[in-house]
């Protein structure tokens, strides 16, 4: 669809025309991706409902009580974190839109206020995580800094059997491809140590006999992941790509 003026629509909807690496789409004759919902797919809701933690999804009637009390949405002001909306997208099966929140959805802090208040007995917090799991397993989500931090955290824990904050920070820095200057690190470390929020001493933490445990755990995790991945239907081809 041709559009009137590029600046009036969000960037991700503009279809750029490039010739030899140069954007030649003008301001007045650009094309944009359609906003029309062209496909819905019940398989997401079915999958979520089939998981032990997700079975209450079909109870939701979209009243918004959960979002009304969700600290992320209200106090923290994270507008795009809206549990009611995630459930709606999963319910109707609007995967393309849902996928935009693949990383945001993990921001839930599990305070469970939503579960406490939901009039329909939806285990909102669990359902939200199950939707997140679906998105993760079915792939295609761009990794966010929060995802990378999660990855560093898991690696750290799996590697040593106990959390080592200094090592966690180093791994995370590596994943982000950045390096904090030594002086800044020292200042940060001292502040955290003084306030009792950092427990790392001069030696790295490690759980005794962890290697044996780790093997068992890794085998189990790999098996679990493979099983769950196999149960997830393939992600759809994004619609609305053609002008």
């Amino acid at each position, binding site marked *: 669809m041709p559009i009137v003026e590029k600046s009036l629509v969000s960037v991700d909807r503009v279809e750029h025309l490039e010739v030899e690496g140069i954007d030649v789409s003008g301001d007045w004759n650009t094309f944009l991706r359609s906003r029309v919902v062209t496909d819905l797919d019940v398989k997401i809701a079915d999958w979520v409902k089939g998981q032990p933690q997700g079975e209450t999804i079909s109870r939701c*009637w*979209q*009243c*918004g*009580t959960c*979002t*009304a*009390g969700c600290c992320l*949405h*209200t106090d923290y002001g994270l*507008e795009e974190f*809206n549990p*009611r*909306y995630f459930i709606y997208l999963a319910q109707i099966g609007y995967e393309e839109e849902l996928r935009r929140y693949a990383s945001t959805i993990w921001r839930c802090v599990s305070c469970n206020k939503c579960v*406490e*208040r*939901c*009039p*329909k*007995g939806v285990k909102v917090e669990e359902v939200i995580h199950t939707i997140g799991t679906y998105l993760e397993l079915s792939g295609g989500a761009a990794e966010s800094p929060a995802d990378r931090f999660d990855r560093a955290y898991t690696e750290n824990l799996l590697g040593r059997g106990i959390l080592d904050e200094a090592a966690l920070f180093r791994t995370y820095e590596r994943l982000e491809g950045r390096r904090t200057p030594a002086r800044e690190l020292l200042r940060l470390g001292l502040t955290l140590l003084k306030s009792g929020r950092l427990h790392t001493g001069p030696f790295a933490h490690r759980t005794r006999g962890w290697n044996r445990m780790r093997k068992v755990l890794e085998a189990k995790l790999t098996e679990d992941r493979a099983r769950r991945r196999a149960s997830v239907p393939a992600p759809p081809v994004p619609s609305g790509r053609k002008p």
Partner: protein
Amino acid sequence: MNPILVLGGGPAGLSAASELAALGAPTLLVERESYLGGNPVRWHYSLLAPDLRPAEEVIGALLERVEGDARIERRLSTTLTKAELGSHGYRVTLATADASETRDVAAVVLATGFDHFDSRRKFEYGYGRFPDVVDFKELEGMLHDNKLVRPSDGQRPHRIAWVLCVGSRDLQVGNPWCCRLGCVVSIKQAVEVRQKHPEVDAYIYYMDIRTYGLWEDLYWKSMQEYGIKFIRGRIGAVTLAEGGSRLLATGEDTILSRPTEVPFDMIVLASGMEASAGTKQVAELFGVPVGPEGFLTPRLTDLNPVDSGLPGVFLAGAATGPKAIPDAVTEGMGAALRAYQYARD
């Protein structure tokens, strides 16, 4: 013929008693409170939806029929404490504060009604803590007495919010059913407020609007003629705003997909209907089956909604579920007819 016992003096019971008398049957009307008329009288209901007729006119007409009829023996401040099935109806024990007596009755109409949900149980809404959070039955009284003021300071509110489905459709308080009347009564109240005080803004927070059947008309009018605003979202909690002088309704506007924390001068809770204490008591005394909601269950809700299935026991009004006054009156008539047929045979 032994008298036919009508338990409960609300709209359904009054209707049953006056109908029985009209059929020529001796009637014994027993009411646990010291007055007749039931919840509408107890809470001073103002106008009744959807015709906006004063409740007094409607209940008054029923009362007149009953009170003016010598064939109806009225017993106030009286409860039933025992019921035994005999060969011709029941032998019942009636008790007042200081005496009790045994009577033989030919048949029984149970019209023991409902209680309004106690909004304190929905503690997030602050009812009982914040004076300006009022229950809609209290607003009825205010409208009836023409005194629309904030309980906290006696001032006229500028902006009022209604919260629907309080204590209804809510598993957190254990009441999954719909109260049937909260929508239409709240809309009626908002209309009544705007008729009398057009300067007061009225907002209704809803999940669904259930103004079923012909009541839809009032819903349309409320928007088109009275400028009442509807926001789709259930309020999560009510807190204090502006140093405690106003109330904050925190919710999600699900159409905007945004949190809303709008200050109001007064918040009205559309509290639901529960089976009354009396209804629960007679269910036990007579052994009438009750549903998971605690209301009495007719044997066939479709073919014969006023028959309990037990010999000589008939049901009417909100004792079998949330009901509007016209429906309660109709059922009272039906139950009277069935009880009369049973007693006569």
